[in-house]
């Protein structure tokens, strides 16, 4: 099958095979199918399970009825005998007298069978022939009446299955719609600051092989001119856990229902469900933990007085940590790392080595309140004679600001803010002194600075 069409695009070394557009279309179609399947499941569950129950509980009108007789209704489906309680009642609506076999709305609709015979018999014990009781009839069609109303708990759980399909499908389709027609560079600056991509033509830039400045970086700050983007947003992890938990638990629920409705209780299958259930609970717990972490730890904002940075120069950095936390400690580091990738065959080896690190801020034992976030402004100096930001296909020198913290009852968190550091300008050559404007236009593709910085480092060094 793989020879006739390829669902996903393949990457071979630095080269991709197949059409990216077609591969994207296949993926989008796959997610669209998931979404439609989920919608169909939703509609079926609503139409045949929830809506009838809801209508019988809300719209049906009460009227007195006489119980004539009771019986255990049976049917055989796929070689299995199923049971339901059935009560024959007589009631009057207007001038007309109605007589029918009924119990709840599912019985009236021809369903309501289960393998549990004892449950059906217990239900029938509540009804005695000749007694007068209340029945509820459909005002739109008085021939439909029930003696029991209310919701079955598991019908709501059934909704989880189509819901997980809808979430996965909608997420996948939205992702592809968002990506559609956008260049790799544009995607990198819009939603993937991690992929600080190189210019397609290194010769065209003033600083070849220095990662480009994402347009996100040009977001103006509130305290200092530039707000740095954070790598890997927590909401993505949150959505990931949610999708995983819904999908897994939905599947387990479907299996559990199959066991519940099967005629013979299968012990081995039920035992198999126990570890599945445990995994499901773990996923749900992981989601709730991530949710708590995301909401409690709050947003980390880092702003900087100038961008990109230049070796040997000083800058102001502003850190704001929101949330509602009792902090054990919080620190902000500036780091320079090397990353080398060795790829051969099935083995990809990536090694990172930190070459330089400086702690800019470290505070211990303090509280962060919703109304009073933690704020601090510090000066940093990029040492001269350090290596500038550099990126080639297998080797990278990267600069980052890392904010790490530990709060009571929470795991240690770390948020990374990418920096771009340019080399120190040479004092000898006229051509190598660069102004802020030339840096902006050559490396950021002509994007305008949010603010002409008044900082002393902004002009020719």
């Amino acid at each position: 099958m793989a020879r006739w069409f390829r669902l996903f695009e393949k990457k071979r070394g630095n080269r991709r095979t197949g059409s990216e557009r077609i591969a994207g279309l296949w993926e989008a179609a796959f997610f669209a199918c998931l979404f439609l399947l989920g919608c169909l499941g939703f509609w079926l569950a609503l139409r045949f399970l929830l809506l009838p129950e809801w209508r019988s509980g809300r719209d049906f009108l009460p009227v007195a009825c006489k119980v004539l007789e009771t019986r255990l209704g049976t049917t055989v489906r796929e070689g299995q005998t199923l049971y339901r309680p059935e009560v024959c009642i007589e009631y009057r609506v207007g001038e007309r007298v109605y007589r029918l076999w009924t119990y709840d709305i599912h019985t009236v609709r021809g369903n309501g069978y289960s393998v549990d015979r004892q449950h059906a018999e217990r239900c029938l014990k509540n009804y005695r022939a000749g007694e007068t009781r209340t029945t509820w009839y459909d005002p739109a069609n008085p021939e439909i009446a029930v003696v029991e109303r209310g919701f079955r708990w598991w019908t709501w759980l059934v909704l989880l299955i189509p819901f997980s399909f809808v979430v996965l499908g909608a997420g996948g389709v939205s992702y592809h719609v968002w990506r559609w027609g956008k260049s790799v560079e544009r995607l990198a600056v819009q939603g993937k600051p991690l992929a600080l991509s190189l210019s397609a033509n290194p010769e065209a830039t003033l600083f070849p092989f220095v990662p480009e400045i994402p347009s996100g970086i040009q977001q103006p700050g509130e305290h200092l001119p530039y707000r740095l983007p954070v790598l890997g947003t927590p909401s993505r992890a949150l959505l990931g856990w949610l999708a995983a938990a819904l999908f897994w638990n939905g599947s387990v629920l479907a299996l559990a229902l199959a066991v519940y409705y099967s005629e013979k209780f299968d012990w081995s299958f039920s035992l198999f469900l126990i570890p599945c259930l445990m995994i499901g609970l773990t996923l749900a717990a992981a989601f709730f933990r991530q949710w708590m972490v995301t909401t409690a730890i709050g947003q980390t904002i880092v702003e900087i007085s100038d961008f990109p940075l230049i070796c040997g120069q000083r800058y102001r950095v502003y850190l704001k940590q929101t949330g509602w936390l009792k902090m054990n400690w919080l620190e902000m580091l500036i780091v320079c790392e090397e990353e080398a990738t060795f790829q051969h065959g099935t083995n990809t080896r990536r090694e990172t080595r930190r070459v330089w690190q400086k702690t800019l801020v470290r505070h211990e034992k303090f509280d962060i309140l919703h109304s009073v976030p933690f704020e601090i402004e510090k000066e940093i100096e990029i040492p001269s004679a350090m290596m500038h930001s550099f990126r080639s296909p297998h080797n990278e020198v990267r600069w980052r600001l890392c904010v790490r913290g530990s709060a009571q009852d929470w795991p240690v968190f770390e948020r990374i803010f990418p920096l771009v550091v340019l080399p120190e300008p040479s004092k000898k050559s006229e051509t190598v002194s660069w102004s802020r404007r030339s840096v902006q236009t050559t490396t950021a593709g002509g994007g305008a600075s949010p603010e002409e910085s008044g900082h002393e480092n902004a002009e020719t060094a």
Partner: protein
Amino acid sequence: MEPRIVIHLDHRKTVYDPGEILSGKVIITPADCVDVIKAIELSILWYTDGKGDQDLHVHHFRRWSQEGDSLVPISSPLCFQTILPQTPLSYDGLIIRVRWCVRVRVFPVKGREIVEEIIFRLGHVAPAKVRIQ
């Protein structure tokens, strides 16, 4: 007789500033071996070295060939000149190195090609050493 390659950088410089002009000449000896050379290639390039796969980028390239219009005038020195870029600078990291060099490749009419290169530094980046402050 097998040709020999000698690369000379003007002013005997080994360290250049970004944006500076790098110039020099290539001398192929002996001078009477013109008949045995098919082509000469000169590249000014950088490459990485270390624990990652090697990346390479040619900044300046020139080819002198016996075929076509650009005959190899190897009796006189082959001069070259280029403006060096701002980045990447030469770097001695812990697991990554960035090296700049002038590489000359001579393709004889018969036999294997001969390669000679001369390393130079671009910029003044200090060697990396782990520093945690």
